[in-house]
Structures are given as structure tokens and as C-alpha cells.
């Protein structure tokens, strides 16, 4: 049977019920869009628009047409234009988390800086379990006007892996497009190496920036990842089914906007479901209900034939501790069994507000375990090994067998040095280290290597593009951006 079954929480009829409820919400209640350009555009496409209140009611016909226009799968390339991964193929890919404003340092957190993003990117780049690097933190020293493009610049400078990112303003998206064009030699549209996250504001609202980003990304040919944030009991109904309805309606409305601007726009059915803690008023991403909502909305996404994304494999703990480990492993495993295309979360602590180098390294081990799990159990005459079992008989030693040598590398996942599997005596002699200490060692070892920078011509192009952005936004200098030549 090979790969394990896809984990699901909704039956076919329940998927249909969510779909019908979401269509009813869109056509009868509608969504709020805080952008005249979007309102005008949607009115022209046949939506019922009340320009004064910003309310847009979307008929089922528009939803159907928009879904039909979406590619069911597409390829993401790396910075060098090489095929990196295919989304929508029911294959799981792991990404770092992407929303943090702080960096973990010991037991404390401090505002993240450019140097932190460089280090986080280099470590993520070196970890084979991580498929996509996100713009993991903002650089505190960058002015707000170019915090989004500077973030992307630092990532493109230090890793060729595909990027998950997002703009902080209308203009920001165009600045970022210019950086991508510079580093790819103008191949942003036919060989995209970045996905743009755009978030609705729950429930059922799109800010001016989000609406503009969707329209502009679509017209520029950039892939868009919709990241709806259901929050049961606060921003969405407390019932998980009701939260999935709101997620579906919000995401469908975003898809309508994108596909009516440019049919065929590459989109990802994403999300960042959170819990809502009724004691503290916090929004834990590691709440099991949040993970359950992910499983359910992923079913909706697959039902519509779209690639999916979620935030999972992360923790709300303030430390790289046992809570961090258990939360990361549980939500990561469940999301992977649900076959989410992009699982973003590696390195995240503290409601995705804090990013940790050490946790990134630990989380890569979780991703490695999950990858092995997803390969399932291969059953064939050679793997059943009946002849070998017969030949060795009771008390046989399998260690020295050619069969063992042939299979052990594929059958047995070997974790990295971060995971302790020493016997107690050896562990004691090697300094009684805990996982945090071992992770720190791995981080230091990785950072001794050179970053994978673009080739010199492309790097120079990228630098020029970044300096143009800085000139436009009135920012004379930033760390890591070389002075203008000549």
C-alpha cells in the first residue's frame, strides 16, 4: 500500500455542506473590501457591490468561474531558475515560519535584526529537510517603507531555495517584484521562485493593502498564497465547522479577485488557523483545534483542486523546550498526514512572533521523521524477506546480511546529531548535553560555511535593485547592502 492514507476529518457530504454554506455567505452576506479599485473591478465582473459600505456580494457563478481558472498545480523554481518543487501534487514540503519580529536568545527574545535574518536564512538553506525559506523575521533597523523588500533582499542574497514572502504595502509588492526580476534575470513570471502571502482580516474583510496586493500580484504574474486566519470563538464561530466556513468564504473571495484580474493566476489555498485561549485571550497556533481546522480546510482546497498551505510544525512556547517539541511534532505530523503542500513553521516560537535558530535545527529533525513516515512501508518479495528469514532461522543475525546493507539506508531514517541516541555512558562522557546545546553546536557549524550567494552578476543586479528601492524610499544605507559602485 506504500504511502499512508490521507488523514481527513470531513466526509464528502460534509465538504459539500461547507461549500454550500460558504457560497451562501459570499452571495448573501458578502465580504468587506477596503479598496475602491477592487470594488470597481469586482462590480465590473458581475459582483453586487455597495461602494459606500465596501460590501461585495459574490454570486456562485463568479466563484465557479474563478475556481475553473486556477491551475491545479504549478512548479516553483529556485533563485537560479531550476525546478525546485511542484505544488498540488499531494507532496508535502516544509517551509520556515515567516512572521516573526523577535529572535530568541537564550531564554529571552529581542527585536530581530538584519544579521538575524541572514543567519536564519543561511541555516535554513543548509538544512536539507527545509524546502522553502521564508522571510523569517523583519529587520528592526529597516524603515517601515522598505521592511518587506529588504527582508526579501537578505533572503535572496543568502539562499537559492524558493521563498515564501509577502508585501507590507501596495508599493512594497512592486519593489519586491523588482528584486525578483533582478536576481532571476527577468524570469519572475515564467519561473517564479517566490510565493506572496496575502491575508484577509477575519472575519470576511480585506484591507486596502491586501486587496491591492492580490490584484497587483495577479497582474504581475506572481503566485499568491491566501492565508486566512480562523480564530474560533473570537474572529470566527466557536464551532470548528463554522470556522472552516469562514475560511472557505474568505479564501474563495480572494481567488475571485485574483482570477478576475488575471485568469490562470497561480494560487495556494493556505491558512493560519489559531485557537483562542478563553483564559488568556491569546491565539495559540498549536491548539489542536487549529490543526483540525487545517485538516478540514485542506480537504476543501483539494476538493477545489488547489495546492494547499498551512502554518504547522511550530510552537507557542517561549523556550526551545519540551512543549516546543511536542507541539511542533504533533501539528507537523497531522498536517503532513493531511498532505498539505506547504507546511510552514520551522523555527517558530511564541505565536509565530519569535524565531529561533536552534529551534530551526531541531524542527528540521521533526521534518525528517515526518518524511520517513510519509514514505510508508514498502511491501515486495524483497522487503518481506521470506527467503532471508528462512535462511537465517531462529536466532539469526541480520546485521551482517547483504539484504541489510541494501535496505538500511532507505528503510531506516537516521536522525542528525541533534537527536540523542547515545547510550547513557557515552552521553555522560560527551558532556550530558541537552537538545538545545546540540542544536547550538549545529547552528555554529553551519554558519562556518559560506552562504550560497547568487552568481556575481546577478548579485550585482540584485544590489542595484535594492539600492534603487532605497533611493526611492529615502533610505541612505542598510546593513549588508554594498555602497553604490562608481
Amino acid at each position, binding site marked *: 500500500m506504500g504511502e499512508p492514507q490521507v488523514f481527513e476529518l470531513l466526509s464528502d457530504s460534509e465538504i459539500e455542506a461547507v461549500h454550500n454554506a460558504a457560497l451562501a455567505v459570499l452571495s448573501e452576506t458578502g465580504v468587506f473590501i477596503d479598496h475602491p479599485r477592487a470594488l470597481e473591478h469586482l462590480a465590473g465582473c458581475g459582483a453586487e457591490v455597495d461602494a459606500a459600505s465596501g460590501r461585495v456580494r459574490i454570486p456562485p457563478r463568479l466563484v465557479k468561474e474563478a475556481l475553473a481558472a486556477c491551475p491545479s498545480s504549478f512548479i516553483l523554481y529556485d533563485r537560479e531558475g531550476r525546478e525546485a518543487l511542484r505544488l498540488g501534487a499531494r507532496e508535502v514540503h516544509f517551509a520556515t515560519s515567516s512572521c516573526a519580529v523577535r529572535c530568541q536568545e537564550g531564554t529571552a527574545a529581542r527585536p530581530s535584526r538584519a544579521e538575524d535574518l541572514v543567519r536564519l536564512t543561511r541555516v535554513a538553506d543548509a538544512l536539507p529537510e527545509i524546502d522553502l525559506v521564508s522571510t523569517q523575521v523583519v529587520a528592526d533597523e529597516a524603515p517601515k517603507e522598505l521592511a518587506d523588500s529588504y527582508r526579501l533582499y537578505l533572503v535572496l542574497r543568502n539562499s537559492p531555495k524558493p521563498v515564501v514572502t509577502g508585501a507590507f504595502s501596495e508599493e512594497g509588492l512592486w519593489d519586491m517584484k523588482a528584486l525578483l526580476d533582478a536576481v532571476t534575470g527577468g524570469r519572475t513570471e515564467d519561473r517564479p521562485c517566490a510565493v506572496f502571502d496575502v491575508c484577509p482580516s477575519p472575519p470576511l474583510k480585506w484591507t486596502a493593502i491586501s486587496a491591492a496586493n492580490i490584484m497587483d500580484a495577479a497582474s504581475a504574474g506572481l503566485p499568491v498564497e491566501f492565508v486566512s486566519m480562523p480564530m474560533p470563538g473570537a474572529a470566527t464561530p466557536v464551532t470548528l465547522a463554522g470556522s472552516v466556513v469562514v475560511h472557505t468564504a474568505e479564501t474563495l473571495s480572494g481567488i475571485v479577485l485574483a482570477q478576475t484580474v488575471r485568469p490562470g493566476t497561480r494560487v495556494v489555498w493556505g491558512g493560519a488557523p489559531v485557537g483562542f485561549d478563553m483564559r488568556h485571550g491569546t491565539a495559540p497556533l498549536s491548539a489542536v483545534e487549529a490543526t483540525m481546522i487545517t485538516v478540514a480546510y485542506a480537504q476543501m482546497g483539494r476538493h477545489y483542486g488547489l495546492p494547499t498551505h498551512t502554518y504547522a510544525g511550530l510552537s507557542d512556547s517561549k523556550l526551545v523546550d519540551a512543549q516546543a517539541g511536542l507541539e511542533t511534532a504533533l501539528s507537523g505530523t497531522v498536517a503532513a498526514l493531511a498532505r498539505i503542500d506547504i507546511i510552514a513553521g520551522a523555527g517558530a516560537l511564541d505565536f509565530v512572533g519569535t524565531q529561533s535558530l536552534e529551534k530551526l535545527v531541531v524542527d528540521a529533525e521533526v521534518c525528517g521523521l515526518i518524511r520517513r513516515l510519509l514514505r510508508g512501508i514498502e511491501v515486495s518479495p524483497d522487503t518481506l524477506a521470506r527467503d532471508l528469514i528462512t535462511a537465517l532461522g531462529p536466532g539469526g543475525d541480520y546485521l*551482517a546480511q*547483504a539484504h541489510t*546493507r541494501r535496505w*538500511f539506508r532507505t528503510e531506516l531514517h537516521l536522525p542528525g546529531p541533534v537527536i540523542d541516541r547515545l*547510550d547513557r*555512558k557515552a552521553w555522560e562522557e560527551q558532556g550530558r548535553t541537552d537538545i538545545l546545546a546540540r542544536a547550538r553546536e549545529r547552528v555554529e557549524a553551519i554558519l562556518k560555511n559560506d552562504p550560497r550567494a547568487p552568481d556575481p552578476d546577478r548579485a550585482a543586479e540584485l544590489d542595484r535593485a535594492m539600492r534603487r528601492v532605497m533611493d526611492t524610499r529615502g533610505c541612505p544605507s542598510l546593513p549588508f547592502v554594498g555602497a553604490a559602485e562608481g
Partner: protein
Amino acid sequence: MVEEAFARLHEAVLNADEEAAVKATRDLLDAGAEPQAILERGLTEAMTELGRRWNRGEAFLPEVVAAAEIFKTCSDLVEPALLARGGKKAGHLVLMGTVKGDLHDLGKNIVTAMLKTAGFEVSDLGRDVPTERFVEEAARLRPKIVGLSALLTTTMLEQRTVIQALEAVGLRPDVRVMVGGAPVTAAWAEEIGADGYAANAVEAVEVALRLAGAAAQDAGGRKADG
């Protein structure tokens, strides 16, 4: 021709390719290569290199154990020619076995393989080895070291029995005794009068080198720390 066959033998042991190793050994013998050189340059050096790779995390137990078996097969092929020329096997001899009543030999096999990567010659008596057999073989082969493995708290008592038996026949002063196995501790080793205890295969090599005095002399035994 001879150099090429040495290289093939080296590669075959590293790749755990028994067929190629046997062929290379035969080719070397046919070509008149020194049996001592086949053992030392061909087989022992390859095992030592494998030990280095294992220490660096580049080779894994299935490969080490398989290479150790190939070592045995090939050195058996060389032995007649070696004895005919009055040569001796490379490295210090270790007599290994799992004690009477104990059917576990995985740990013992791993230690055996690792000792071979460090240049020791190992005579493996297998598992469930009666005390008398340890004594007979010790008298016949005169090993530098006797290694006693036990995985059960019930069978570890046999380790003491073997030591006492070696004492009874007067062999004890000439051999060093190492003990190991999951329930065994350094305190137990001391209590029963063993000379060495190792918690794992890597440590077993260190202890064996120390006991054989090989660390200082490097008499065929090479330190396995790459």
C-alpha cells in the same frame, strides 16, 4: 598487477563486496604477493580505514560487520600460505564469546567487528559458549584478551564463572579479561575481577587497546580514532 589487486581488495572490503574481496585475495596469492602483506596492507588497512569512517559517521554498523566477515573469509584464504612461510597473523588475538545460557550475540558481533577495524585478530566462539570451551580455546590459542558478553542479569553471573575457571587452570595471569553487555557495569567488572569493562563498541576498542598495551606499541593494532 599486484598493486592493482591491492587497491581492489581495499575497495572491496570498504564496500563490503565479498565476491570482489575474495577474487582480489586469490589474485594476490596467485601473483605471489607476500601473505603477510595481504593481511596487513590489504585487509587490516582497509578495516582501519573503515573504522575511521565509522568514527566520522560515514560508515554504518551493517557495513562494518560485513567487512569484518569478509576480513575473516579472506584471512582464512591467506592463512595456509602464511603458515607455510612461517608468518603470523596481524594484530593481537582476542577470544570472544557470549557466555553460557545467553543466546544474544548482536552486541558481541558489533564489538568483534569494531575490534577488527582497530587491527585486532578476533576468534569468535559464538553464543551460549560453555565455560570449558572458553578455557580450552584460551589454552590452545593463547589470546592476549578474552572478551565475555552477557545480555541478561541471570547470565552475567557466568562471566565470573569463566574468570574463575581460567584461574583454576592457571591461564588467568596470561590473559586480560574484558566484560560487556547491557546489565554489566564497571562495578560488576571489578567485583568479579575482570580487567576491563566497556559500555559500547567504541569504548571496547579503547579498552582492548589499553589492555593489549597496543596503544603505546602500535604492534599491528591501530588506534581507531582516525
